[in-house]
């Protein structure tokens, strides 16, 4: 089955992984800007990272006939440095109109601090002023519930935001309901240690239905599995779910969400419907 991975950090993966993803049926991916394992020291460090995301990674994906899309931001962990964060936010418009840049992300909270919240709000302001889509990181483990509720508070307080253009990622059993009930999209991240397993993701599909729901692999520099979405597809099949339902979650939903971005340009594989950018 063809699928789209809506959240995967390909800068952390080898070219072999691109080839494997293509062989597994991946036709497109979106890569949010994130914490690459170390704190960067200057705005130029971020500029180089954004150049990598907008030039080299699409090229690598193209070698295997996949589409690569991306998102710009300073992540929550490095947002603790407010001065640097503001420099990065001021520089981001250099990239936001480039082909394949879908919006601002993955912004959010890490340890749920005041500084992280301030920079999250400043990202939201930029997104609202420019009409950008938003992709959100929610914290891990014991910080997740509190941080997700704080994020939803801030999103709901900003009436300029169109909730159907906001994706809240890394939802789990205790956070998914609040995100969907407020009208946002939700992403389930399959991860060996700190997030969700394929079987639990299928449980959440059964509990909440497929609307505004996606599944992704994260596929970052930590212990992670870039082919986690095919694992989810297999778990859905083993539970007896129809192919049409699986396709909606792993292909049609990402297309529907991404097509709201002005920089989304996607050629579907033969036999599958095209979605025009809105």
């Amino acid at each position, binding site marked *: 089955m063809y699928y789209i991975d809506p959240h995967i950090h390909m800068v952390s993966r080898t070219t072999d992984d691109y080839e494997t993803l293509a062989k597994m049926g991946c036709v497109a991916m979106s890569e949010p800007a994130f914490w690459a394992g170390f704190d960067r020291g200057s705005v130029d460090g971020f500029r180089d990272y954004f150049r990598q995301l907008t030039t080299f990674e699409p090229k690598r994906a193209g070698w295997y006939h996949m589409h690569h899309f991306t998102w710009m931001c300073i992540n929550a962990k490095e947002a603790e440095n407010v001065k640097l964060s503001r420099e990065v936010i001021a520089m981001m418009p250099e990239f936001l109109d480039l082909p394949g840049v879908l919006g601002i992300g993955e912004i959010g909270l890490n340890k*749920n601090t*005041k500084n992280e*919240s*301030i920079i999250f*709000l400043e990202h939201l302001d930029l997104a609202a002023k420019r009409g950008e889509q938003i992709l959100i990181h929610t914290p891990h*483990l*014991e*910080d*997740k*519930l*509190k941080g997700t*509720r*704080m994020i939803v*508070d*801030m999103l709901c307080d900003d009436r300029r935001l169109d909730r159907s253009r906001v994706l809240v990622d890394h939802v*789990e*059993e*205790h956070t998914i309901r609040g995100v969907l009930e407020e009208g946002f999209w939700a992403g389930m991240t399959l991860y060996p240690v700190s997030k969700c397993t394929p079987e*639990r993701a299928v*449980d959440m*599909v*059964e*509990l*909440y*239905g*497929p609307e505004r729901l996606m599944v992704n692999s994260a596929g970052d520099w930590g212990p992670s599995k870039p082919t986690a979405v095919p694992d989810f597809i297999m778990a859905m099949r*083993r*539970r*007896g*779910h129809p192919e049409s339902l699986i396709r909606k979650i792993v292909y049609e939903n990402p297309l529907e969400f991404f097509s709201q971005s002005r920089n989304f340009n996607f050629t579907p594989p033969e036999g599958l419907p095209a979605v025009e950018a809105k």
Partner: protein
Amino acid sequence: MSVPLSAPDLLTRDFLEVRAKILELAACLDRFQRAEGSLAGDPRMRRIQDGLAVLQGAAQLESAEPNRAEQVQQIFSLPYDEEWRKKWGI
């Protein structure tokens, strides 16, 4: 949304995996106990005990609410304060 497989089919499919996970937990607790040092008063052990208590409802499948995963997640979560923005002035 409905669950396509019946409960007996799911149990047949998942029985050995559940058994393996319970064994893994049992072995972990044994390991803690065999090692030097005390865990008395460690709040993480309290959370583990609270989590196991939620699972004990599994013996009464008909009466317990099917939200054990959510309950366990809540046990391992920090509290949320609705007044957080007011306190920080943002």
